[in-house]
């Protein structure tokens, strides 16, 4: 058996055994079904769900939860095995660094992918059966694809963290800081720059800065397809800037591949 598949299979098995897959899927479907039907309550009115409010509230919640789940799932992937001694043992087997890294990625990425597809897909399916809102399919498909990409970005980042440090507890701490930085601090800093009225940042420049944050890319892609009246803040400015969705998706993909490549370089130089 190809070692990549063997490792992937084992990681997937681990995810099943730890109930990760079940719990993530459950969280995602609870979140999306709940928001689809009761999302409007939050804005003070009881009305039938609208697609743009649903996607808007779903993506503002997912942008916090998906990175956190991906980091929690993977932060100890390497440092954990290093502590238990199996990483050293694996490196004496006929498997290369790249194969082990890719195998783990394949296994854990399929857990996240499956969870988003089932979790969010179930809400999409339910909505399209029970309401007469049009174009649920494309909007939800894009949402599921970007959610998966967001998850994969943070899996790669988690591997990077897991390979840089030599202690599990340190990896957990750094993962938490990384999470806070990308979902909160980055945007606050950006908002501060905008409010201070600095001349240097044009609308186009703003979106370019947002390319440096996968979480912002995720929001940008999902919200730009919607009615802009539901969107406020920094994003409203950014959305009007006219980057094509496919360009933004490519940027997200780059956010998956770049940390993974960097992780591989670090892994090869790591002394066990």
């Amino acid at each position, binding site marked *: 058996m190809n070692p990549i598949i063997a490792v992937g299979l084992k990681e997937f098995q*681990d995810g099943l055994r*730890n109930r990760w897959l079940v719990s993530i899927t459950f969280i995602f479907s609870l979140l999306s079904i709940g928001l689809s039907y009761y999302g409007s309550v939050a804005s003070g009115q009881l009305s039938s769900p609208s697609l743009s409010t649903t996607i808007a509230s779903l993506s503002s919640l997912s942008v916090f939860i998906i990175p956190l789940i991906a980091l929690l799932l993977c932060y100890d992937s390497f440092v954990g095995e290093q502590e238990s001694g199996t990483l050293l043992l694996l490196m*004496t087997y006929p498997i290369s660094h790249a194969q082990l890294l890719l195998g783990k990625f394949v296994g854990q990425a399929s857990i996240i992918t499956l969870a988003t597809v089932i979790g969010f897909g179930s809400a999409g399916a339910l909505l399209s059966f029970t309401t007469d809102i049009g174009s649920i399919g494309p909007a939800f498909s894009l949402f599921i694809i970007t959610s998966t990409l967001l998850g994969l970005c943070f899996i790669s980042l988690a591997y990077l963290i897991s390979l840089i440090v030599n202690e599990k507890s340190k990896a957990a701490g750094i993962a938490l800081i990384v999470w806070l930085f990308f979902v909160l601090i980055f945007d606050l800093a950006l908002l501060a720059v905008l409010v201070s009225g600095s001349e240097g940042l044009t609308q186009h420049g703003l979106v370019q800065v947002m390319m440096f944050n996968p979480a912002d890319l995720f929001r940008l892609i999902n919200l730009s397809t919607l009615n802009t009246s539901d969107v406020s803040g920094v994003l409203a400015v950014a959305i009007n800037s006219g980057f094509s969705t496919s360009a933004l998706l490519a940027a997200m993909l780059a956010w998956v591949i770049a940390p993974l490549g960097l992780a591989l370089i670090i892994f090869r130089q790591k002394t066990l």
Partner: protein
Amino acid sequence: MTHLVSLKGVTKQYKQLRALDTVDLSLDGGEVLGLFGHNGAGKTTLMKLILGVISATSGDVSVFGRDPSSKQAWHGRKSIGYLPENVSFYDQLTGLEVLTYFARLKSVPKTQAMSLLADVGLSDALHRQVKHYSKGMRQRLGLAQAFLGEPKLLLLDEPTVGLDPIATQEFYTSVDRLKNQGASVLLCSHVLPGVEQHIDRAMILARGKTVAAGTLSELRQQASLPVVIKTHGINGALAANSKLAGFMVAADQLHIPEGEKMAIIKELMSYDSLSDIQVSPANLEQIYQHFLNGGESSTNAKELAQ
């Protein structure tokens, strides 16, 4: 003549620490080499070098005729079995799942994983999660892992830690079996009693340096440790015999240099009243003590002289 494993003048320097200092080692097919030394003597570093996980600062390492850290040596890894010290396997998986995973990585059929688990006495715990295993069971799972794919070279770091006497005996039986099939074994151990019958040669390391190396009888000669002979029934006659009196340490006990052993035994046999005799050559533990203490005192002397 090429050896299966050969190290020539190998030095491994970590930032501050010289883990190995110009160590030579060779291992042939079907040979069992015991590697002894205190914690931090460089045993694990030596194994990692042979496994190709780290590369030497200077000197030559060759395994199956290749540098183990090179890309060409990669396929040779299938015929190497390794049991690391203190390994804890994936707790969530069952014993069978763990071994199946390693078997897949080594391209070994799953049936072999099953029979190895039966060999190490884990057939009743196949489907139990590893987190419920006792220390000895985990160690046996590790051994089954090392035996996967009928390796030609086995590197075992503290293999008998946590094993009960019967499991230890079974472990040595499997080592002997693999040895008879032509496999070479490098065995690292703290548990000295019981190892002697199973090793062909021994090497003692201290602070990264080779203190002594050779077969056990060579080491005995180098150490010139006495053979201890206990006699029963000769009451007092020992002291009267001028040949024997010099070696006496107690009324019924003699310490004799290895070379004169036979002459003394023949002399003792001439006593009709001799009812029983116990001959015990210096055991591995004494040799180990001798070399490590001797080694340290000589380095201390050198340091003082400087």
